[in-house]
């Protein structure tokens, strides 16, 4: 968010956000987390800033409205001998109460519009990941390469979450938020996602990337991200998709570009049948080019 006004608002926001940000020293979500994460991408930062701006404006309006009502309740009581006034309208007040909120709304809409215009640009991405939602797992395809895999709930969570399993969720690391094969992405790279689904509608959401996007059968949606900080980012399916909707988490592992290139080469080797290794050598070189090192050329 570039608007100076928003910067100022962020300054005011600090005390309010303090509790939230203190809690977010570990990777979100964390216990007692009160606020939206600032996340790891431009989109999540913008969402957070707009969220705080609207929230604080609502708080300011709330102070006026609630202040007025609590004062009335305290002051204008029959038991205190209050005598009701006779007036029942005031054109000036009504005009002001229409125009001022309209101006406040415009002040909110303007930065939101700017963020949306900037976010709509999915061009110039270094690589594309195709995400397909299934009941109840995700499939990730590194478009243009042989690398693709399914990603589903990790086994220890899957066993613990059965009704009457007797396994304590507190004993499981990242209960319900861990998968067998995370989506691996390079840092500092604009990654484009195309999303669809095989059976019913799902929604792919990692809060620290800043958005969710529905994965709909028969329809292709797209979105993008660029994460600079390597790390592990967790999310969940956000659209009701049947009985195991609560059990199809998302894990994105962002690696430095060098580590990613290594990881990708390993995956590609594993994905290529040994008999075809020689034949695939050329293609592999091309696709590595496309998917990993190309990332560094992009700003």
């Amino acid at each position, binding site marked *: 968010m570039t608007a100076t006004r928003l910067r100022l608002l962020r300054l005011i926001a600090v005390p309010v956000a303090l509790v939230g940000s203190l809690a977010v020293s570990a990777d979100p*979500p*964390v216990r007692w*987390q*009160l*606020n*939206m*994460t600032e996340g790891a991408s431009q989109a999540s930062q*913008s*969402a957070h800033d707009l*969220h705080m701006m609207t929230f604080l404006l*609502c708080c300011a309006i709330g102070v006026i*409205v*609630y202040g*007025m*009502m609590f004062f*009335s309740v305290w002051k*204008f*009581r*029959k*038991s205190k001998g209050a005598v*009701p*006034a006779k*007036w*029942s*309208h*005031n054109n000036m*007040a*009504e005009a002001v109460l229409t125009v001022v*909120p309209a101006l406040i*709304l415009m002040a*909110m809409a303007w930065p*939101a519009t700017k*963020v*949306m215009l900037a976010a709509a640009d999915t061009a110039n991405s270094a690589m594309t990941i195709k995400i397909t939602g299934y009941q109840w797992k995700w499939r990730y395809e590194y478009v243009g390469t042989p690398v693709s895999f399914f990603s589903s709930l990790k086994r220890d969570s899957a066993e613990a*979450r059965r*009704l*009457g399993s007797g396994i*304590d*969720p*507190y004993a499981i690391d990242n*209960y*319900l938020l861990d998968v067998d094969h995370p989506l691996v992405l390079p840092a500092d790279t604009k990654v484009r996602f195309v999303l669809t689904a095989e059976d*019913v*509608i799902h*929604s792919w959401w990692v*809060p620290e990337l800043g958005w*969710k996007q529905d994965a*709909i*059968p*028969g*329809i292709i949606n*797209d979105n993008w991200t660029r994460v600079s900080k390597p790390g592990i980012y967790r999310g*969940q399916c*956000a659209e*009701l998709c*049947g*009985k195991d*909707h*609560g*059990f199809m988490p998302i894990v994105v592992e962002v690696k430095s570009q060098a580590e990613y290139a290594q990881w990708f080469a390993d995956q590609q080797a594993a994905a290529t049948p040994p008999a075809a290794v020689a034949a695939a050598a050329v293609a592999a070189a091309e696709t590595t080019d496309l998917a990993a090192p190309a990332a560094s050329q992009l700003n």
Partner: protein
Amino acid sequence: MAHAIASTGAGDLHAAAEHDHKPQGFVQRWLFATNHKDIGTLYLVFALVMFFVGGSLAMVIRAELFQPGLQIVHPEVFNQLTTMHALLMIFGAVMPAFVGLANWMVPMMIGAPDMALPRMNNWSFWILPAAFTLLLAPFVLFLLFGIGGGGPAGGWTLYPPLSLQGGDNVAFTIFAIHMMGISSIMGAINIIATILNMRAPGMDMLKMPVFVWSWLITAFLLIAVMPVLAGSVTMLLTDKYFGTSFFNAAGGGDPVMFQHIFWFFGHPEVYIMILPAFGVVSEIIPTFARKPLFGYRAMVYAIASIAFLSFIVWAHHMFTVGIPLGGELFFMYATMLIAIPTGIKVFNWAFTMWQSSMTFETPMLFAIGFVMMFTIGGFSGLMLAIVPADFQYQDTYFVVAHFHYVLVPGAVFAIMAATYFWLPKWTGRMYNETLGKWHFWLSTVFVNLLFFPQHFLGLAGMPRRIPDYNIVFADFNMWSSIGAFGFGLSQLLFAWMVFDVCVRKHGAKASAGVWEGSHGLEWTLSSPPPYHSFAVPPVIDGRMLAHGDISH
């Protein structure tokens, strides 16, 4: 009434009361009911029953969510619980409760003897028990007797393709929705016909109570959107059973089209559930503030503009389905616009309280609670309109908190306020004021404990409609569940009080005016009112109306 007495004589009036053709016998009186008060009572009792049925499902949901891990129900049953809870509360509790209030109050408020179309009124009520039997059947048969595949589990929004994966409960649900739609449309036609044709001489449109105005506008919304819902679910039905592909991409259809049609109904539906609440609160606050409603005309115009805007904001429920940028901008701006008329209403209630002389009987407590807590839901609604932030909020507990704030301490509190406000008028007996105040304070504390922490859960990343969650969400979920149990138990107080007044016939006798500050034709009738409200049109004196002076 003074006029009636002068021209017919008190003796005649007394005789008329004995020959009011009040039907004798249970079946005659209730099954064949045509009297607006009897039908109003039927609606309200039905709504109360559904409120407790839907509420007990919510208790099971919150019990499952009390701590991480699955303890009580399987995930597929959990999905049925959330789906049924929503359908029962929306179509079974909130909407019929407001129709019941309209049946009771509209004729008395405009000086009419009854509703315009009494026989249709009978039908529009008696369709409901049949519709809900149909809706509940697959769910109850599965749960209690293990028969069939259970009730609908795809969410009350019935999004395909998921909703079509259900078994034959799809047909049950869709036929039930058709019947509810027919019932609502008939009820709405009746209300419009009554308001437009049966006002007493001198009851001009701009002298009508705000409650009547709010229902007139709500009735038009119902007529406009219930057929849209019926159309969309009919297409679901043919997709499932007759091989059509309206919403099936493989057959050339579009699953997103369902969402557009559904929310074209769905957003006005939100206002169908809240506009009558605005009306109720606009009657109650001036009464206990002993001061006329601030900005009567602005209030009426605000309701009308909210109703208009409700038709052009539907896609704000769908920001994440992949709408083009221009569409997202349009729906964001249109949604934000709703804040203006809504803000006018809240400010006008606050100004009504300014320099007034208030007392805080139970209806007033619930009305003030409504304004304050509905506003919290209004604020989160404004936040949800901001598209980039909505990409984070959408389908999380933040949304759950938002719509429950507008529906529970919003619409439901308004229904409670209305019940306490008019119960003495309906029955001629005062409810127990001490218990009423307990009911208000317990409900308020628990409803906030129930729903406020859900904002935090959503912001921290907990999706809605999940039966189990990571341990970081455990603390606030436990708070929320404790709030839910407390809120649920507190409602038993309400049921007891209504039972005490209506069935046990306890309570002090109420006067005709009931409240010191009451204004309006309904308060000129005795408590309880005569069987036919105004057998003779009343002669209207501006001073007995709340808005008699139309220069305001």
